[in-house]
């Protein structure tokens, strides 16, 4: 089959590789019909996530058709149109039983890497480095998915492919960011980042009862989408002091809930960004914490900072004093999309959530290298390149 493989930092290529097969009774093999790029892939692409190996297939947000099922799979059969939650749960460990699927104990075949880095083994993630299991990704003709009955969801008839593909990752990540922010009716919610996840967090904040949503980015087209599709007020951080603007817009209180949808490769215009960038270039640390620092500093006393942007290692100059003295709650995690998939499909069918506009650049898998370049450079208003294998 054909697949997009990672060959080294900023080096991708489309190769011919082995087809996957059923290896465990709870596996399925899926023929991929749409597979989207994701902002978190850029961390892999840039070499910021260790334990990538040349030849690894990347991609984790996808839609497809079941072509083969393992002997213990009960909920799916050949021909089903499905999405897969990219963060793999087993459904049997204590975390999965609590619906914390992204804390799964059993889905990572390589537990020692995250045990060393984070203190305990973390879950497996499709197409997301060997530290997170080394699973082959979805930018390929076929993909094997473990624990199918837990991680697959049939796409309802009334939902198109272009809408459904983002229920695999971007939509549940944004929804999770808003959900764990504990939004109360009428709350003011600030969202950093207007990529696909940020835009989904904006929409989700409204669905969960926000009274006002403020979106922060620097790309005019993305700010336009946040304003038009997300009905958000917007701040361009390249032209506006974010902290001062947020206080000015909220009577000096600060937003009740702040959601970081950017993560470790944040950009900024202030001194801390250049400090982070320098240390990152010197390989002295991995994270750029501009957005997280802004969110913590701006959040109202007693508020919540929700983090769904990806961080991988150690962050310098973390404002712990502000967290303690303003009594902030920090919540974070990879998305447990299994918790939200059916609810998200329901919102899409009812017209309460629009996901299809995220797909700006459909293209053939053979053009995937170009697709990632456009996505990385944000050229031609690229929000998401989506490949058709």
């Amino acid at each position, binding site marked *: 089959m054909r697949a997009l493989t990672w060959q080294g930092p900023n080096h991708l290529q489309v190769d011919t590789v082995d087809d*996957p097969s059923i290896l465990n009774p709870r596996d399925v093999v899926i023929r991929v019909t749409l597979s989207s790029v994701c902002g978190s892939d850029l961390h892999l692409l840039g070499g910021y996530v260790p334990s990538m190996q040349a030849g690894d297939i990347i991609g984790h947000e996808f839609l497809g058709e079941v072509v083969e099922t393992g002997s213990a799979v009960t909920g799916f059969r050949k021909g089903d149109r499905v999405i897969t939650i990219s963060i793999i749960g*087993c459904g049997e460990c204590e975390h999965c039983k609590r619906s914390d699927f992204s804390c799964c104990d059993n889905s990572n075949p390589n*537990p020692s890497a995250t045990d060393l880095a984070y203190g305990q083994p973390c879950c497996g993630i499709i197409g997301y480095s060997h530290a997170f299991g080394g699973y082959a990704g979805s930018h390929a003709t076929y993909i094997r998915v473990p624990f199918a009955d837990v991680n697959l969801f049939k796409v309802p008839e009334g939902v198109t492919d272009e809408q459904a593909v983002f229920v695999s990752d971007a939509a549940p990540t944004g929804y999770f960011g808003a959900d764990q922010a504990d939004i109360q009716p009428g709350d003011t919610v600030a969202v950093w980042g207007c990529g696909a996840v940020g835009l989904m967090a904006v929409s989700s904040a409204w669905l969960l009862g926000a009274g006002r949503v403020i979106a922060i980015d620097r790309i005019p087209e993305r700010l336009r989408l946040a304003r038009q599709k997300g009905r958000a007020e917007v701040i361009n951080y390249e032209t506006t002091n974010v902290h001062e603007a947020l206080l000015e817009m909220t009577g000096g209180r600060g937003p009740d809930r702040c959601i970081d949808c950017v993560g470790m490769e944040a950009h900024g215009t202030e001194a801390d960004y250049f400090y982070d960038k320098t240390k990152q270039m010197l390989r002295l640390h991995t994270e750029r914490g501009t957005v997280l620092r802004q969110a913590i500093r701006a959040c109202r006393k007693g508020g919540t900072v929700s983090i769904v942007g990806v961080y991988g290692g150690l962050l310098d100059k973390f404002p712990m004093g502000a967290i303690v003295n303003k009594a902030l709650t920090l919540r974070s995690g990879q998305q447990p999309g299994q918790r939200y998939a059916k609810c998200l499909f329901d919102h899409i069918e009812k017209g309460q959530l629009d996901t299809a506009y995220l797909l700006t650049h459909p293209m053939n898998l053979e053009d995937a290298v170009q697709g990632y370049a456009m996505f990385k450079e944000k050229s031609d208003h690229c929000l998401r390149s989506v490949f058709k294998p």
Partner: protein
Amino acid sequence: MPSKPPLTAVRSVTPSRNHPNLGPAQRVFSISGGLALIFNGLKHKGPLGIAQTALGIAAAWRGYTGVCKLTHQLDQTAYEHFMRKDAGWSSSKAVSRSVTINRPREEVFAFFLTPENLARLMPWVQSAQTLDEHSSRWTASGPLNKQLGWTLKHNIIQQDQALQWDTAYQGPWKHRIEATFSDAPQGRGTEVKVVLAVQPYPGSAAYALASAIAQFSDRALLNLLRQVKQQLETGEVATNQMRAPQSDAAQGTATETGAFLTIDQPQEDS
């Protein structure tokens, strides 16, 4: 087990000037040797002289304070002292890992009791065969295409609560593995704690070598316990392979365990 052992994580007291870990003779030797190096270094000058002076200052300071971090690193832990006495060994190096398995204690205990169950989850083990109620024979691929083999003696210390395996090998590098099973709180299943101990040759150098190897053993023990948990909780072991290897396609065994578990001083199969 004669008495409750200390936690394997308990270390000896971190040395300080108030709690030196060097004896009087060691301190005198360190100071005098250090002064000699300083004197010789200043006499010869040049890069070698500078190096000697620096080393001499470090040695003299070590003797003056009575604190040596390297010696501290080579101290056996409280558990290792316990294990050494309990097993009648001259020295001991131990690693430990714990896991909570969301299955009843009796089921988890029974799984560990069957050597074939564990061998199937260790990619480097070729076979494990139960010889009788109290022993099993294990084989593995060794370096230079040699087949290695060893015999383990099993001992049920307490039914459904504690197991012990000892190598039948006589000599240094004997191994003992202890597994204890207890009910996890709030109905979370069974807490399994495994301690893997080896008897290195006496002396600091052998202990240092055992400690270095233990880094790999620790990782392999983690991977094994996680795979046991996967098997018992989900009925299968997660794998990232694209296709099944021809030989163990039916097993679906996980890859990337990455390191060898030093279970025994293996002997070549006769």
